[in-house]
């Protein structure tokens, strides 16, 4: 009876330990962290319309570089527009932002409307992305070799109290990256 009790107890302990360890050790097979990247653009002349296209690469993030060989998946979390500096302060214009894959296929496009950039120096303007927008980006990123985007910013109907102006803006994007340990 005693032997039976002891054996049963040991079996229960061992099974419990294995099952609990299985659960918790799964958590240590990977680590998930967020990868922010920023693309700056400068508009500093006086036509009333500007369109700039710049290449944006995840390689610009040192966090991405550190873990590039171990990435399991990477997903878009948030994106925003931010003004780094603007002269004059009353500069305004209609802004449209487009993110495309490396071949130029549009992933999402946002019309931000008429903006006064000076309002977004301390508090960036969060992009309102639909689940479809996010899905398209994530689908593109599911091929891990895809790490380059084409970001296009168009500013139209520019209005300013001075004949010359300079706007340094930035688009910040943050991704969630799961990597193997």
């Amino acid at each position, binding site marked *: 009876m005693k032997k039976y009790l002891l054996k049963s107890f040991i079996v229960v302990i061992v099974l419990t330990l294995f099952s609990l360890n299985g659960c*918790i*050790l799964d958590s240590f097979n990977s680590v998930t*962290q967020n990868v922010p990247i920023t693309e700056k653009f400068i508009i500093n002349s006086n036509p009333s319309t500007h369109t700039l296209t710049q290449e944006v690469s995840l390689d610009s993030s040192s966090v991405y570089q550190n873990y590039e060989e171990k990435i399991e998946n990477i997903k878009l979390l948030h994106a925003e527009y931010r003004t780094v500096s603007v002269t004059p302060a009353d500069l305004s214009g209609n802004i449209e932002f487009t993110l495309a894959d490396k071949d130029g296929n549009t992933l999402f496009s946002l019309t931000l409307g008429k903006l006064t950039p000076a309002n977004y*120096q301390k508090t960036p303007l969060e992009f309102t992305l639909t689940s479809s927008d996010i899905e398209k980006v994530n689908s593109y990123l599911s091929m891990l070799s895809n790490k380059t985007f084409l970001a296009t910013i168009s500013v139209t109907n520019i209005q300013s109290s001075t004949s010359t102006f300079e706007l340094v803006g930035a688009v*910040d994007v943050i991704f969630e990256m799961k990597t193997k340990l």
Partner: protein
Amino acid sequence: MRKCFYVLLVLLFAVKISYSQQDQFASFAENNINGFAQPFVTSLGEGLNSGGFHTAYVPTLFGFSISFRAMYIFIPNDQKTFTPTLPAGYTATEPTATFWGNKAAVYTGPNGYLSFVNGIDQSGTPFYMPQITGSLMGTELLIRYLPQIKVGDKNLNFFGIGIRHNISQYIPLLPVDLAVQVLYNKLTLQDIITASTFAVNGEVSKTLGMFTAYGGIQYETSKFDLSYTLNGDPGSPDPLLRQTRNISVSINGKDNFRLIVGASLKLVVLVFNVDYNISSQSVLTGGISLDF
């Protein structure tokens, strides 16, 4: 398989740390590592400071015991998040994940996005320990020890010692057993961690036949000296996170007091016990001992 082997034979926490410390801790500077890691340190303290007794009776002549203790530590929700310190221009509008938490919060401000690493999203963790005790004239010595083991390329050492003394022997006709105990544990993972815990408790128990009901109150501390390399990101909005550098910090656990309630069943020399510890992180402890 190697991990399972270590977990069963070593201490789960050491393995966890060896596999995760660089990646889990490496995105925190001195100002936030405490908030992120303190619940983990508390868990370590809760585990090491558990299982010190399963009765308040200490033989007044001679006694010897070999035990195996298994614990399950419950992580409360309020220790899964913390409010980080952010650079000027940023506001912590929501808390971010601790080591045990889930998703890291994303903060925005004048220099772009700022975020940290996710937690491992767990509500509890197991913990195991072997120990032996020997008593003479109402005083018991408890030893916890593991020989030096390689975990990855690091050496792991663990040692614990406790002294327990029978108080009821001085009080004639006392219907219960009383004892006091002091416990100290030290765990080191070469160049990365030195963890030490201390506990002092008062115990009471009552034995009826094969059954013993026991309880106690315990004061305890846990301290964790951690060294790691911060993975600097030159583009980070937080100036403290821009340079890769070595960081050494000392973190105190949140475990201070616990209330212990438990019961044991003795079948000749074989003792099964279970107790519940109400503390900063509550602990369910199960044990099997050979008591002579």
